[in-house]
Structures are given as C-alpha cells and as structure tokens.
C-alpha cells in the first residue's frame, strides 16, 4: 500500500512536470476527430448519426497513443528493475502505474470528450450517457493497456505491435461504450451497456494487474 501510494504520487508528479504528454493525447483526440469530420463531410445529421461512435473510437485511439510509454521509460532507465526489487508486490506496481495513467490521460479525455461530441452534433440528451460510459470504460482501457504495454517492453516494434495486440482486446469496451451513447440518442436507453461496462471493469481489475505483473517479471529477466 505504501509503495502503491509512492508510485502513484511520483507518476502524477512526473505527468505534471511533463505536461506536454497529456496535451498531446488531448490534441490527438481533437485532431483525429477533426479529420473524421473532413472524411464524412459537414452535413449535420450525418455527423450526429456517427457522433457516439466517433467520440468513443477517437478516445480509444488517443488512450492507446500514450500507453507505450507507461512502462517503457521506467524500463529503459532502470527504474523498473528497482521497482521489482523494492519489496512491493509487482501487481501493486502495475495497479499504481495504471491508475496514474488513467488519472492523467483518461481524465483528460473525459474533459475533452464533450467538446468533441459538441462539434459532432451529439444530441443533448446523450451527454450524460457519454460521460458515464467513458467513466466506466476508460479505466478498463488503461488496465488492458497496462498488460499490453508490459508485454511489448524491449521489443523491436513497440508502438505498432501494441496497437495490434490491444485493438482486438478493446473491441467489447468500444461496442458497449458506443451502444450506451447510441441508446441515449435514440431514447431507448437500457442499463445493459453500463452493466456490461461495469462487469468488464471488475474483470479487468481482478485479472490485469496479475497478468501485467507476470509480464513485467518476464521483461526484467
């Protein structure tokens, strides 16, 4: 617990000192959405029809962008070796770094999402659903991402490989996240997507720190 708090505090401090990275994630989110708008054309009802999917997909890609660095910097400068020897449970290390990742990028995406949604003419009744689904879904993205980031440590092609590994794993979160928003747009809102997103989060919380810990052990060996 003590080391969990220490790692979390340090990662947040590093994120505050390197604000550029957080801004980059939000910037990517906004730019990718803008490109999407160019791709589908300026017609308001077409954009409105796609808004839930676009916001969710772009948020997912933006989260992916920052994942590669989650363990890579600590791996390259020897910090990861030291963390594995600090007496802390490796799963606690994974969990602390995941929480730090979510607090820096996940929360930044949550803040940026309404603005992007607004530009895509998301109907006003769906903002609550958008925020709630992102709140439930993005921690799962960070948790799965932590496993992926730990797996590719030290590999020859980190970033592209990480996307290849994670995108299939991310598909259920995307399906239910976008469906929650879609349901709110069409006024047929059910609790199913939220229940599944919550279930996925609980499952990821129980399995990912453990799997990530195994992957970190492999990485330092």
């Amino acid at each position: 617990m003590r080391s969990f708090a220490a790692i979390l505090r340090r990662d947040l401090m590093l994120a505050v000192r390197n604000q550029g990275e957080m801004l980059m994630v939000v910037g990517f989110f906004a730019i990718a959405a803008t490109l999407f708008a160019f791709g589908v054309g300026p017609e308001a009802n077409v954009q409105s029809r796609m808004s839930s999917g676009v916001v969710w997909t772009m948020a997912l890609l933006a989260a992916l962008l920052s994942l590669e660095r989650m363990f890579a910097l600590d791996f390259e400068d020897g910090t990861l070796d030291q963390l594995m020897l600090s007496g802390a449970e490796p799963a606690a290390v994974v969990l602390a770094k995941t929480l730090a990742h979510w607090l820096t990028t996940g929360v930044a995406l949550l803040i940026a999402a309404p603005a992007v949604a607004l530009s895509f003419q998301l109907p006003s009744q769906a903002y609550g659903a958008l925020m709630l689904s992102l709140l439930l879904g993005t921690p799962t993205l960070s948790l799965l991402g932590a496993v992926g980031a730990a797996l590719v440590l030290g590999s020859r092609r980190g970033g592209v490989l990480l996307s290849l590994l994670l995108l299939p794993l991310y598909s259920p979160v995307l399906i239910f996240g976008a469906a929650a928003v879609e349901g709110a747009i069409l006024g047929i809102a059910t609790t199913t997507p939220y229940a599944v997103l919550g279930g996925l989060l609980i499952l990821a919380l129980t399995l990912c720190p453990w799997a990530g810990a195994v992957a970190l052990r492999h990485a330092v060996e």
Partner: protein
Amino acid sequence: MHKFANPTFFMKIANAVFPWAAGLSVLCFIVGLPIALVTSPPDYQQGETVRIMYVHVPAAWMGSMVYAVMAASSAVYLIWRHTVAHIIARASAPIGAMFTGLCLVTGMLWGEPMWGTWWVWDARLTSMLILFFLYLGYIALGDAFEDQERGDRAAALLALVGSVNLPIVHFSVEWWNTLHQSSILSMQGFSISTEMVVPLLLMVGAFQFYYVAVLVIRLRAELLAAKIRTARFNLAATG
C-alpha cells in the same frame, strides 16, 4: 506428463503419429470432397452455394479449436515451463491463422450470393475476424524480441489473455448484432439435413488430421531451429 516434456521422447511419439494423421487426412479428403462438392443434395433455399459450408464450417471450428490448443499449451508452458508445450503453441499459431483466414474468405464467398455483399458484420464472421487479429498479434509478438525466450513467454501470456477475451468478444458482437438486427441478415435458422452431416463430418475429420500432420512437420522445424540457434551461440562464444 513430465515424460512428454522431454523433446526427444515427444518427437518420437509425434513422428509415429505423423503417417497416420497424414494418411487419414488424405483419405477423408478423397472420400469427403466428392460427396460434399458433387453428390450431396443442394439446399432448397440456397441451391448449390451451400457447398461452401463444407469448407467454411470446419475451418471456423478449426480456427477456434487450434486457439484453444494454443492457449492450453501456453498455460502449461507458463506454469510448468515445459518448452515442448510452447513449441506446440508456436507451431499451431500459423495453422490456426490459416484456418481462420480460410473461414473468413469462404464466409465472404458465401455472403455474396446469400446477402448480395462480400462482407456483412455478422456476429460469427466478426468474432472470427477478431480471432484472426489475435492470431496475428500472437505471431507478431513472438517474433518481436532479440531474445527468443522473452518473445515465447510474452506470446504465451498474450494467448492466455486472448482466451479470456474471446468469449467476451463473442458475447459482445452477438449483442451488438441483435441491437442492429434490422440491417443485417443472420445465418442462424439454417438447418442441416442428414445427407449433409456425413460429408460435413468427413471434412471436419480431414481438417483435423491435416492439422495434426502439419503440426508435426512444424514441430520438427521448430526443434531444428532451436538447435541451430544454440549451436550458433556456442560458435560465437568459442570464436
């Protein structure tokens, strides 16, 4: 169990199995293909196109089964560190990917006459597509490291993560599909008559034995590659 972990002993069994598997596979193809493609009755709705099923369905089953084999051997490798288990997983991956790819291609060929389009986001096809991506990820991760063992272990862990994920993906796309059912026809509700069961089972058998035979060939190659690697390292260390 531990006896099978010895590569030499294991390969002795694998080599003994090989001629039987290869022979049975050829036999099943020789008997099954003419029945499936010529003599079996056409479907009263789909006509002759139903014959694609005799390749499509066994390929789909094999795609999933080989992944199950891969995940199980990966677990054995990670827990008991039996290299043979990992070599089985590693050798299975391209075969499984091939079956899954075959399933996707035949699914598209079947989709054109049935739905009038080459691709629909049908729940099963989408699940198979995600499975195909998982295979690609597994193969890419296994080859991404200078240190072979590191790649082996990362890939094994990924196979396990994927096996937890696959049922969730399957459930998700099923649900996703029912949500948008108006736009998409489903393959469900298609019933198989008894005359179709025999050629289907023969084709399944042919695919199964084909997998075993090709697996043995790939196992031989993997073990030889490992020997070459060790020999090269030792040569570098002496020189």
